[in-house]
């Protein structure tokens, strides 16, 4: 080639060599630069990056404690934890969330309810990398089809966890309550207290109502921790250290499953509440409101449809009649006001009055009728109790006056929630002058006292209060605060009296005489509950009550057939037994049950026999 003639190969070679040497030097220096950089990272910054890398792989993860179990007095399990497999999604690890959900839907099928829940949970605030539950209680087929396809769905896991289960479902729904998912509001509440936030850092369920809520502290337990090694996708490779959670303590309640199941059976088709109390200890043996519901529905989240069905049911299955149903005590109040008359000296056991079927206050047109139009004739305290003579109580109430009656009734716990561990129980209403002035801006009239004498008018009680008062009555004025809890772990729970004093009567013999009168409610031929006598096994001291649901106008005939079923009178019944040495006190309210002797009475009687029968033989 012609260029070659201009060339000087030696000079060319020299030039190339010098350039190669220069580049060689530059390359050496740059490699030294890389080495220096590596040395800087690996020597100077070694500690920093060593820590970073440790943090990368180590995660401290809280481990939720197992919730304590709940037993009844016979050691029957009322609330247990059963393993359940849930499908979870960790959005941080999912590649195409929507696609994954659609695929899962084809695989196992989500119900409308589950879609709703998934959407809510996806939109809720949560801890980073915390899995979201897509579906609870997977069946074995579902688990199988998910596991087979898991590689196509990053971020999807099947998680085993213990879920609360109530084996006796509806029997204990109101009294035990239930646990449910910690909601936003509860989470905010927990977050306020650093200690609570820590304790609940791995917990998904919390007691929502009933004993589950009341004993949350005991049942919950202490969170544990495990130090795990995870890969970059957050999957646990191995557990390095573990501090086991301390499971919640078990609790044993005074509740007796036999009574609870019997109450449910006996109250079939009725609306009402039943409370039974162990007189000696104050332990609540039974607390049943009918109709009931299945608390298991609420544990992992109830569907709108299920909830609407319960909410819109006219029989109000979600309503706990035993602690939140407030009814006029009607004639079941008579033993208590009767004692108030005696205590205030307004009358004595021997005094008799004549009942023509009505009572009238001096200078008042208004006629207060006895339930028996023809009147009871000559009655004393005992007769008035047995036949439930209204006129007698009208008269004596006026004699004693509200200022004697109301404070005396208060000693039995009326107007307050006197239980240890049923925080939501309503207090009922025990009226007095101050209350009326405050509430109605009006004076207390003699007519108000007349009504109060037979447990009508303003006064309201819950079945729980009635049972409590009955227990105190049966226990001759000695208080045992009603409570559900019997033992925490192995240790029986000691409970002090509380702030209420035992009732001291001026004549302690009046307790026995009142008991005798109440026994005759069943044994006497004219007793209002005499029809229970034929089933007599134990001697029972009882009192019936019939609470008006609608005010009947003065001269109108009361025709129960004409009234819609729901406007019929409520039937009430209180009792304790055995009369001479009472062990159990029972109060039953049957809404629109009309005749206590036909509806509420037999229920109470069955409960008592079951309990005493079981207790004694």
């Amino acid at each position, binding site marked *: 080639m012609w260029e070659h003639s201009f060339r000087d190969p030696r000079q060319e070679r020299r*030039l190339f060599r010098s*350039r190669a040497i220069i580049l060689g030097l530059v390359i050496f220096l740059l490699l030294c630069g890389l080495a220096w950089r590596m040395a800087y*990272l690996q020597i100077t910054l070694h500690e920093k990056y060593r820590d970073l890398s440790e943090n990368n792989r180590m995660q401290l993860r809280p481990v939720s404690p197992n919730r304590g179990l709940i037993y009844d007095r016979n050691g029957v399990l009322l609330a247990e934890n059963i393993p359940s497999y849930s499908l979870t999604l960790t959005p941080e690890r999912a590649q195409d969330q929507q696609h994954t959900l659609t695929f899962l839907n084809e695989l196992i099928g989500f119900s409308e309810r589950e879609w709703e829940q998934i959407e809510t949970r996806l939109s809720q605030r949560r801890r980073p990398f915390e899995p979201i539950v897509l579906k609870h209680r997977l069946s074995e087929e579902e688990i199988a089809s998910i596991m087979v396809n898991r590689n196509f769905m990053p971020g999807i896991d099947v998680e085993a966890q213990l879920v609360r289960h109530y084996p006796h479902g509806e029997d204990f729904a109101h009294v035990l309550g239930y646990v449910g998912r910690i909601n936003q509001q509860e989470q905010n509440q927990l977050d306020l207290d650093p200690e609570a936030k820590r304790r609940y850092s791995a917990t998904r369920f919390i007691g929502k109502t009933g004993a589950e809520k009341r004993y949350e502290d005991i049942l919950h337990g202490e969170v544990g921790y495990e130090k795990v090694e995870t890969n970059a996708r957050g999957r646990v490779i191995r557990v390095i250290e573990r501090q086991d959670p301390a499971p919640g303590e078990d609790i044993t309640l005074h509740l007796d499953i036999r009574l609870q199941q019997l109450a449910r059976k006996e109250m079939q088709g009725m609306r009402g509440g039943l409370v039974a109390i162990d007189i000696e200890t104050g332990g609540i043996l039974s607390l049943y409101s009918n109709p009931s519901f299945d608390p298991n529905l609420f544990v992992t989240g109830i569907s709108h449809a299920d909830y609407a069905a319960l909410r819109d049911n006219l029989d109000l299955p979600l309503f706990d009649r035993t602690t939140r149903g407030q009814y006029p005590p009607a004639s079941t109040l008579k033993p208590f006001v009767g004692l108030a008359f005696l205590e205030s000296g307004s009358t004595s056991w021997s005094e008799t009055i004549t009942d023509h079927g009505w009572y009238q206050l001096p200078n008042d047109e208004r006629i207060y009728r006895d339930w028996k139009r023809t009147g009871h004739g000559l009655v004393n305290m005992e007769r008035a109790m047995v036949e439930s003579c209204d006129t007698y109580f009208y008269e004596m109430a006026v004699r004693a006056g509200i200022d004697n009656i109301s404070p005396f009734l208060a000693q039995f716990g009326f107007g307050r929630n006197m239980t240890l561990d049923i925080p939501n129980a309503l207090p009922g209403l025990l009226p007095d002058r101050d209350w009326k002035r405050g509430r109605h801006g009006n004076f207390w009239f003699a007519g108000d006292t007349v009504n109060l004498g037979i447990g009508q008018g303003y006064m309201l009680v819950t079945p729980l209060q009635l049972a409590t008062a009955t227990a105190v009555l049966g226990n001759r004025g000695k208080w045992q605060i009603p409570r559900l809890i019997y033992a925490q772990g192995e240790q029986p729970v000691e409970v002090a009296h509380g702030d209420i004093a035992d009732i001291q009567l001026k004549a302690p013999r009046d307790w026995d005489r009142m008991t005798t009168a109440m026994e005759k409610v069943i044994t006497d031929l004219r007793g209002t509950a005499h029809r229970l006598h034929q089933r007599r096994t134990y001697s029972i001291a009882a009192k019936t009550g019939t609470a008006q649901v609608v005010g009947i106008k003065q001269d109108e005939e009361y025709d129960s057939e004409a009234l819609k079923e729901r406007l019929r009178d409520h039937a009430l019944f209180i009792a304790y037994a055995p009369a001479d040495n009472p062990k159990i006190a029972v109060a039953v309210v049957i809404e629109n049950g009309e005749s206590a002797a036909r509806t509420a009475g037999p229920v109470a009687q069955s409960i008592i026999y079951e309990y005493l029968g079981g207790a004694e033989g």
Partner: protein
Amino acid sequence: MANKDFSRTINDSQGGSGFSRSSALFARAHLDLPLLLLLLLLAASGLLILYSGSGRSIEMVERQALHYLLGFGVLLAAAQFPPRFYQQLAPFAYSLGVVLLAGVLLFGVGAKGAQRWLELPGLPRFQPSELMKLALPIMVAWYMAKRPVPPKLSDIIKAIIILMMPVVMILKQPDLGTSILIATAGLLVVFFAGMSWRLIFSLATLVAAAAPVMWLFVMRDYQKQRVLTFLNPESDPLGSGWNIIQSKTAIGSGGIEGKGWLQGTQSQLEFLPESHTDFIIAVLAEELGLIGVLLLLTLYFFIIMRCLYLSSRCETLFARLVSGSLAVTFFIYVFVNIGMVSGILPVVGVPLPLVSYGGTSVISLLAAFGVIMSMVTHNKH
């Protein structure tokens, strides 16, 4: 034509020891024994690191071993062709490369938002830019070798036009990393050809001045993002900063002695991204520590120095230019990769030569060494 000095040095090196004799044997096979041994050593280390970086995938190690086997075969073949062959082939290879690159831009196959692959019927999917890595420096050398030394300014400008064409096309794909590497390889040829220092500095100034223009008009958003992330990786710790943070953590936590082979938590627990390809040196740094890194750097240094030494002894200007520029390009790969993984350069997709997993890269790099060996072993023709 034969240079007497040159012949004498060749004869000197052939005297005496058994090593030299076997060296002569290799010379007849157009191979350079020391370079070949160094490359084999590098390949062996590569397999060792890959086993760990791939999460103990025997399958991947086997495939990579196959890549090496093919690569060394290509090296052996490439070394057999005389430099004149490459010189004559250069314009055709270059033109073919340009046509294929145009093809990529027109109907290339995309991945991750970039069009880099070409699927031609009957051929496996391939990246034409890989061909350019070899064809471009040879083409520029072909051009410069015909010009007087030192080259005139007009020739240099023409050479730069030749090299800019494919560079711009690769930039369009877009593939910033490869286009910079190819441009550098071409410019190195011009540098070796004797471009004056004054011109080099002016050009450097020009590039510096062009940088803002590049930023505003040429670079894509994701490329800008990479540069921004490079400047401050902590600004996006879970996004584009993740890679560099994790790789620095892997390197730094390795310390001087390392955590032990297969014991690196960053890589074994998959915190380190692309641990078997671009970020494989972080695996080495974590598990074998600074000692391992320095050994690898030394290995690279010896390879490059051997190549430069050999190219300085080439007979023709063309051979010197080709082998010298390929050797320095190889170094640039090393530097860019390690600089990027250790956080002193922005993240551009450049594999660690002969260590990162990947068939195309291994084979084309070994082919380049084959070309280098061809340049230095065919001194008499």
